[in-house]
């Protein structure tokens, strides 16, 4: 009888709730610094963009390009032009219709050097944009393109919310973003959380009516919040937390493939980091396994790819601690051991390791690294930067000695921006004509064996030149409450298929 009463009550409660509803609260280590796809630099920003904005094309669940804001397209016989008919029924979150002018504006703003877009490379292959009418656009390419739709996934911005194509990071849009996507940003909260609501005008049903992004920099705390049901999703779980989450029957783990690796990056524009022998010496003084241990399991790496990558050179071993060899290199550079410390001209060798304060477990790694290097006779200072300082010091000013950070790549694993002499994300200032030639050759080639050979050689060269010491890759798992159903995770952008998700 008691059970029956409870059944009735529960049924009544269930049926009084909205058919779709409840907020999905997910955690990010750090809140997005800017909500403008033209300036996206972090994964948390990319994930939020996926909820708010759309591109002309999108990956379906089989990772094939399918139209999103585009409706149909025609490629010219010589493959240098593409006419795209756009959706007529898409609207911006403020109700203004989406038109071809928005597409043209976005491309021009991204190409505009004054905008300083971090995504400029994504439109470099487009020579010209022509607006044919409100719902049709023609793209002209620098070179023939076999499948241009595969490159048309960058997010489109609303022309009417900017004063012109000279976009700035500080434009008001950054805190008042509007897109055409399934969610609208409704509120920034004082605790750095961001509240999103389903876009009522979206062309498909949005089953999760609300999303909340919570900034929780402590990964341990993130896992606890999920255990205590104060969150519904963690986008990335540390390996050490996997076992406890796996044992929680109210949580499911979703592996997804991100090619991401941790590294120490040197500033090659400063002495003594400009000398490869110094950088190699540092590599020989580090015990990578010991550094990784507090985080959990992963794979130590020797180059700029993960081990499963077609481009990983398995003949190149990861750096192993060898104090004798390291000492030899430092002595070649004029350093000598005086007591406990390495010195040159009587001045102790001293450097600063800089990390982003929100990089998961960076504090542990940096402190351990400091201990290792100090035990080896180097004075080490450490600093942790917030988002704004990181962007300024590392991205724009290149003002650092050594950084600890992490790169995440999509399935293309295109490292050109990080290591080419003209790369827009080449923080270290690395420059090698041989590596540049190999990277360019790999990019141009359509022969997988030529690409593999060239990029495996790049791996070996970069390892030897050591502009970075590659540390490890960790397995990527998302953790979601079992109340969230129909979850499919995009291997890079995560939320691409959120329209299918629902909450019980």
């Amino acid at each position, binding site marked *: 009888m008691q059970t029956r009463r409870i059944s009735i009550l529960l049924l009544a409660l269930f049926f009084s709730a909205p058919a779709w509803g409840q907020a999905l609260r997910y955690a990010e*280590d750090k809140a997005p610094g800017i909500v403008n796809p033209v300036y996206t630099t972090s994964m948390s920003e990319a994930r939020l963009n996926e909820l708010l904005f759309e591109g002309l094309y999108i990956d379906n669940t*089989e990772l094939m390009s399918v139209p999103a804001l585009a409706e149909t397209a025609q490629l010219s016989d010589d493959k240098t032009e593409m006419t795209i008919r756009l959706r007529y029924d898409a609207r911006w979150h403020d109700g203004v219709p989406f038109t071809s002018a928005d597409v043209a504006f976005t491309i021009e703003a991204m190409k505009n050097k004054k905008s300083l877009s971090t995504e400029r490379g994504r439109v470099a292959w487009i020579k010209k944009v022509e607006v044919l009418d409100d719902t049709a656009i023609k793209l002209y390419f620098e070179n023939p393109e076999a499948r241009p739709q595969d490159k048309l996934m960058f997010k489109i911005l609303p022309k009417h919310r900017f004063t012109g194509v000279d976009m700035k990071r500080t434009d008001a849009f950054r805190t008042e973003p509007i897109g055409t996507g399934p969610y609208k940003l409704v509120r920034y909260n004082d605790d750095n959380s961001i509240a999103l609501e389903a876009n009522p005008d979206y062309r498909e049903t949005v089953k999760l009516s609300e999303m909340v992004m919570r900034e929780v920099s402590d990964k341990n705390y993130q896992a606890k919040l999920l255990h205590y049901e104060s969150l519904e999703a963690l986008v990335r779980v540390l390996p050490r937390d996997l076992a406890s989450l796996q044992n929680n029957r109210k949580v499911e783990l979703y592996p997804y493939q991100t090619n991401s690796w941790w590294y120490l990056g040197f500033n090659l524009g400063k002495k003594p980091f400009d000398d490869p022998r110094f950088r190699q010496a540092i590599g020989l003084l580090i015990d990578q396994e010991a550094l990784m241990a507090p985080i959990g399991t992963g794979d130590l790496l020797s180059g700029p790819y993960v081990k499963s990558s077609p481009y990983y050179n398995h003949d190149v071993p990861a750096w192993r601690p060898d104090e004798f060899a390291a000492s030899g290199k430092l002595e070649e550079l004029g350093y000598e051991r005086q007591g406990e410390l390495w010195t040159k001209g009587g001045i102790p060798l001293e450097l600063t390791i800089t990390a982003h304060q929100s990089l998961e477990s960076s504090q542990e790694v940096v402190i351990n690294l400091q201990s290792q290097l100090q035990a080896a006779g180097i004075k080490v200072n450490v600093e942790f930067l917030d988002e704004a300082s990181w962007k300024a010091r590392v991205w724009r000013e290149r003002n650092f000695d050594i950084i600890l950070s992490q790169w995440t790549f999509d399935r293309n694993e295109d490292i050109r921006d990080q290591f080419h002499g003209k790369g827009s994300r080449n923080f270290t200032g690395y420059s090698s004509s041989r590596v540049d030639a190999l990277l360019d050759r790999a990019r141009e080639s359509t022969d*997988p064996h030529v690409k593999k050979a060239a990029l495996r050689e790049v791996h070996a060269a970069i390892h030897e030149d050591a502009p970075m010491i590659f540390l490890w890759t960790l397995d990527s798992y998302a953790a979601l409450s079992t109340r969230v159903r129909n979850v499919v995770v995009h291997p890079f952008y995560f939320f691409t298929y959120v329209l299918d998700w629902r909450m019980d």
Partner: protein
Amino acid sequence: MRLYVTILLSLAIGCGGDDAKNAAPSGDALDASWANIVVSQPVRFAEVVGDERTGRRDGWIALHQNDFGAAVDAFNDGTPHGKLLATRAAVERSELFEDLARVNDIAWFSTFSTWQQRTGIPEGSGLPYVAGLHALDAGDSDAATAWLELASNAKAEEVRNAALQLTERGNVTGFSADVENSLLRSLARHELARQNGDLLPILQRANSALFSEPVEVASDEEGSGLPALTVERSFFDPQVGRTLALGYAKNATGLAGDASPNSAVLNSDLDPLAKALFGGAPAEMLAQIDVAQNPTAEDDVEWAREQVRRLDEHLDAWEGASFANASDDGKALLQDLDLADVFRSRILLGLAREALRGDHPRRALAFAQLALDLEHPREITPVNHPALQAVIVEAQLRTGHTREALDALQVLLPAYPVLLGLDEVISDLAILQNLDRHGDSKEN
């Protein structure tokens, strides 16, 4: 309307509700499982696995750790029971290589057809020979004929000759091991290995390319300024996967002395525990706990997850009850051998394989991924059966997630270096499928 429905449903519950259906599982339904027998009858378990003086114990340790080769060798002490146990391990190995042979076929077919579609076959390349050889070996004579005809344009004389001979013969058998042409000698080796189950000559060469050809990429001094580049285009042997599957199957039948080694084991006088140990659950048991019954017609991932949740409810109940009631020896076995997780993993492996056979790769992927022990995600362990990774590779390939297939294959490579050729061909496929994409990268 909602209130009306609520009242109706509530009345239905009130009048006809069966509290027993909603009761938490007790775990009783798993009493007949091998896992429960081990925990509740540790003495019998000890008798089955033997003690340190016998190779049989080493065999069981190896089987528990999913090291099938070591298990076969350790079990095969020449006694009838030893042979039967070795057969059991050999069957497991053979099934794994059947899974991998299927992956092999998907990978080779997809890679060469994609290569042809996306970029065209490189001029003078021996690639069509390899594609034709694979097609012929897989029984697709039409595709083989088309590919081998293209191979007549190969620069390398040895390749052209081999292609001609294959075209004339129309199959991959009947070649002599004494011929000068190394490609034809390779065919003879495979035929012999498939006949007699001696895989050593295949294993010794599996990690070497079948043949290589130099690729000269001309400089572009007037255009991009890129210098010339010379690389080797290496093709691995597409027959390896099938030969290993057939060869290991041959080994199993040889040990059993029976065309159906599974039946030989099941019908033998081995202790039933020895037949079931470290295996899955019979269909009747799954029916009793209402797991994987009445699957949906669609490739429904959510259905698969629901089955796993239901299975976990029963396993959790069983594990709790077992631990409470078991002797100290039984408790030790439950924990030391990770019996609940091993049992779970084998059940899910069975469901994953069934899903693949039923053309439901997404469901298979869900079952396999949910079976893994994430404390050691990149290792083969008692819980992480290697076939789980083989299922994941196949499911990822079949759903367009080629790059992710390589992650799963990477787990298998240290224990099965013979998969290097498969890794390279799937790498080629991943590259070809993403040729026109613009790479994206972000910090953290």
